[in-house]
């Protein structure tokens, strides 16, 4: 598929309510910039992230998907992120196995105090995705036609 003109990557960031969403908030209130094309979706805990959510984000036009949650050990629900960690490890590995670039998926632990880390992570991820180009392998053509 030819690269669209003026293409900018669309990134979906799933953020846990207790740490990473607050981290994003802190980044904003500290006037740290992160790319405008990062769409944040708040989830109650990183382990709420159903693998289907990741796939559907790609279906509907995401070029990269990142999950942010509390640092291991700091989960508001004690252990949620440990489960999420295993699930995402396996899911990302499977996507890689199907030939979908592994750099399009990422997990980062961002605490409520780490506004700077949030901003840096997003900038870095957006740069990576921009280099990779548009996601054509795991998108839904019907959602792209316009």
């Amino acid at each position, binding site marked *: 598929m030819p690269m669209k003109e003026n293409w900018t990557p669309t990134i979906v960031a799933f953020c846990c309510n207790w740490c990473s969403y607050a981290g994003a908030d802190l980044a904003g209130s500290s006037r740290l910039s992160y790319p405008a094309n990062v769409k944040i979706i708040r989830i109650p805990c990183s382990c709420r992230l159903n693998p289907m959510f990741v796939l559907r984000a790609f279906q509907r036009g995401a070029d990269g998907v990142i999950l942010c949650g509390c640092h291991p050990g700091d989960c508001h629900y004690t252990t949620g992120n440990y489960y999420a960690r295993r699930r995402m490890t396996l899911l990302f590995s499977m996507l890689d196995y199907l*030939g979908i670039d592994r750099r399009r998926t990422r997990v980062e632990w961002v605490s409520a105090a780490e506004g700077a880390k949030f901003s840096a992570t997003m900038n870095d991820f957006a740069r990576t995705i921009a280099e990779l180009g548009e996601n054509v392998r795991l998108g839904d053509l019907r959602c792209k036609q316009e």
Partner: protein
Amino acid sequence: MIERARELLASGEVNRVLAWEKGENDFDRTPAVFTADNVDSLVYDGLCGPNLSKYLVGEMEKEGKILVFLKPCDSYSYNQLATEHRIDLEKVVPIAVGCRGKIDVEKLRAKGIKGILSVTEDGDKLLVKTLYGDAVVENRKEVLLDKCLACKGKEHVVECEVIGESEDTTEGDKFGIVAKLEAMTPDERFAFWRGELSKCIRCNACRNVCPACSCVKCVFDNPNTGVANKAAADDFEENMFHIIRAFHVAGRCTDCGECSRVCPQHIPLHLLNRKFIKDINEIYGGYQAGAEIGQRHPLENFDKGDCEPSVVHVRGGARK
């Protein structure tokens, strides 16, 4: 076997028997529930590929005990279903039966044998009668089901009465093909899976036969999930269905190989499941679903020292 089934039926210990019967073709084997009236038509031989354990889930609603015959690999599915409380051990009498690997009629066809009328075993030889004359397959190992080439061994993991001898029919490393795929470039892998998955007709046979896919209502049938559909309208939906199908059974899949056996398009679906098994073994330590009742599987478990998902970025698989 029929003898033993008849004995148990006569003693009243069980009131029905789950086993196999002959289908319309001489070589067809269909799962069936027998009672004392028709237990004589029970068949067990080298063609009885179907895994019976999932039928037990439906049988649990009925009164009385059921006798089920389990091949060594089926016993893993049985344990897994018992672990998930989908079968009530009080209502089942399992008997283990010997297995020397099951014959895949499709593989006979792939050998160019057309118009098969019957398949008879003679030691390691197979005598095949066809519309176009007879054929002989020297070694039955040439035409075993794919699942039998990754045999889990001759031991039954359910403690029960055993009838007959088993044989380990493993051929080479069961993760060999997975490893081969991992060694490809992402483009090659993508091309391979697109080619395979684009054949999918969404008949759901892989899902419905799977002993681990025992949800009462599948996400792909539930209109409220937003992903329910009857046909894959584009590439993405094919990918999504198969990723999610494999993911939902990850950690619970015993690698019974039924998904690949039933696929009308011969998509090697077990390679998706086996990838998860291989990853689990390598990252979280060796695990065999269904090895014993009551195991906690790796995805409902964790270790504080687990590696980060970024491990995917560094381990295995050729880089672009």
